[in-house]
């Protein structure tokens, strides 16, 4: 078999979404790769310019469909900064708790898809089963399982329901032994280690040069984590460790994510304790009056809004399950953001595909790309 290009995607089991990995192969060896993104482009940044500040939150859920809470959080932080709104403390804790639950759910989803790529079928269903419990929790206080539309500029939509913290603790108690089980299914398997060790190596300096962040960067030994380096929300008030590994390979990324799940459980427990003892409002009372308006101001009203309201920009960075996400919101007055810009961590991680794929086998593509944790919704936006 001579050299040839094959298209892995846009419809391919490995891609986990809509994108295309063009691979130049010689037999089973990879000579070159060319990732092509953009199949899922919905123009979220542009649409945001036409929407009220709170209506953009709906789009955030669709930006990354497995980490909706993290993206909502990212956006509302930037929007609050741009509008000069301060959320109540309780809302901030709920947001952080939601973030960490989302990280847990997202990592479990990643685990399920990743082992499925390796041909390990049972853990896929174990992962889906356990993730459902977290989605049930989300449903109990947001009403949604995947697209929550829960956070608001200036707080969150509603407070946690009665008995929520107890149920959440039950789920965490169930999760902890499950994580040990997951680990035993993978790290206990010789075939798994043979498949994943020394695979898709990307050293820390390379990661920094290519803008690769998140678990991929931390698996290379870096301790960079926005939650620690530039604490947002209430991360400064909780105890947790930054998960790192040294091997910079697929196994390393696996270990980092596994440890992050444990740390997420730790953070959620602390947040639940705080929420139990600190009741209070969850939505700021001093909001711009049109933020809750069911209609778009028109005519003279809109003109006045545009002229009189304070202008500003908001910039926020969040350690999303996939990496470092960044949002930039420009407020030029009025009820719509003038410009919204997002930085997607997966876009950078995916664009660097050439650096960690070339030289390996075709059969290595699914585990390597699986370890990147691709979420195409946020790549294309």
């Amino acid at each position, binding site marked *: *078999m001579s050299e040839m290009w*094959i298209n892995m995607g846009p419809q391919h089991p490995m891609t986990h979404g809509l994108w295309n990995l063009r691979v130049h192969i010689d037999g*089973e060896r990879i000579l070159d790769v060319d990732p092509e993104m953009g199949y899922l482009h919905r123009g979220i940044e542009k649409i945001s310019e036409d929407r009220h500040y709170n209506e953009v939150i709906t789009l955030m859920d669709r930006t990354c469909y497995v980490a909706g809470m993290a993206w909502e959080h990212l956006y509302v932080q930037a929007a609050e900064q741009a509008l000069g709104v301060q959320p109540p403390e309780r809302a901030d804790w709920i947001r952080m708790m939601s973030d960490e639950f989302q990280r847990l759910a997202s990592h479990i989803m990643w685990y399920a898809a990743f082992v499925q*790529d390796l041909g390990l079928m*049972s853990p896929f269903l174990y992962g889906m089963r356990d993730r459902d419990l977290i989605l049930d929790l989300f449903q109990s206080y947001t009403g949604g399982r995947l697209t929550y539309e829960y956070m608001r500029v200036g707080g969150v939509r509603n407070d946690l329901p009665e008995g929520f913290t107890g149920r959440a603790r039950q789920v965490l108690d169930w999760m902890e032994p499950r994580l040990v089980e997951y680990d035993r299914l993978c790290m206990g398997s010789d075939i798994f280690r043979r498949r994943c060790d020394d695979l898709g190596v990307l050293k820390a300096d390379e990661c920094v040069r290519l803008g690769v962040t998140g678990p991929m960067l931390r698996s290379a030994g870096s301790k960079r984590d926005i939650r620690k380096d530039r604490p947002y929300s209430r991360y400064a008030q909780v105890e947790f460790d930054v998960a790192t590994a040294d091997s910079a390979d697929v196994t390393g990324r696996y270990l980092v994510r596994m440890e992050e799940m444990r740390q997420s459980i730790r953070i959620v427990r602390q947040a639940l304790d705080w929420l139990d003892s600190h009741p209070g409002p969850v939505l700021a009372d001093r909001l711009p009056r049109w933020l809750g308006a069911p209609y778009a101001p028109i005519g003279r009203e809109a003109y006045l809004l545009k002229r009189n309201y304070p202008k500003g920009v908001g910039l926020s960075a969040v350690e999303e399950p996939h990496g470092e996400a960044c949002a930039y919101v420009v407020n030029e007055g009025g009820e719509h953001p003038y410009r919204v810009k997002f930085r997607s961590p997966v876009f950078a991680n995916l664009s660097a595909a050439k650096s960690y794929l070339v030289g390996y086998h075709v059969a290595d593509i*699914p585990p390597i790309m699986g370890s990147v944790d691709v979420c195409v919704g946020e790549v294309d936006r």
Partner: protein
Amino acid sequence: MAITTLWDAAYTLATGLLWLVGRIIPPLAGPLANGDLIWGLSALVFGAILLGASMINTIMLIWFERKLLGRFMDRRGAMHVGYAGLLQNFADGLKLFRKNTFKPREADNLGFYSGPTAYMVTSLLMFGVLPISSGWSDGSLPLSMLLALVIFSFAPLFIFISAWSSNNKYSLMGGMRSAAQMIAYEVPILLAVVAVVLVSGSFDLNTIVAEQQNYWFWGPLLLAMLVFSIGMLAEMERIPFDLPEAEAELVEGWNTEYGGMLFAYFMLADYLRALAGSILIVLLFLGGWTLPTYVPSILTSFPLAGIFWFLLKTYAVFGVFVWVRASLPRVRTDQLLRIGWMRMIPLSLVAVLLAAALVLVKCLPVFGCIPSMGG
């Protein structure tokens, strides 16, 4: 006459059928009472029974795998069609049957259509020589095991033909992998079989089973059985050796371009081969349809006891394969070939040496002797 073998049953059935036709249309009675005609018709009936038995077993095997796999995965498997999903596979088969089979424009006509057909036919052929209980086949094939293995090893050829003629890069890569894998694991399988042949002194599956009346071969020939089972796992292309259709990277491997009934052919043939592989393991190492002599005779004297125990063992062996599938990830191509050439072949050679030593000592302290060696 007493019906003791399947052939007798087929012969009686054919004779009765011809007699009935003769009674209904009297002028035909004379010409129909022809020995050759009866023989030919009984051969057809015999084949039909074999076909029915193997197909029903294959479909039940798929059901068994789905249910077992479901339990391993903390779910129930098929539940809705028929009792406990028993008819689910028939529904799936019907759906595939109704589907439009299409062919990519650039695919080669001859290879594209003949590949799956030949794969299916050769997989079915195997059941002509695999005895399911004593009297299932008439024992007139002294090399039946060799024939079964020869038919078994046709598969890579047809897989490669259909993969190549699909004119798809994924199919081609899957076909290449399949060919490399099956050829690599053919050798240890045959060497493991040599160990059995050394001890039993025969290539005839009936004789091999008869030789296991004192003890089953899996005890003294444990290494050979392990090598054979792992080799069979690779030949069946099941996880952890299902690289030719590794769905994560190769979409569906060599059958990517196939849909509808042609895909059903591949699927059925895969499970036919899985069934045949499990049957071979039971025949060679687990005593076939026999039970150890010390079990109470009530367990072996009920009607069709041989078939019952044989199928029980076969499904148990297949259950182990399902268990493996539920708990192991897939290996990589180069790792697979390295395991095949560098681990399995030396191991199978050791197994042959052990078998030769067993032939020398003739009797083992715990197990006893093999009949043909003066037991």
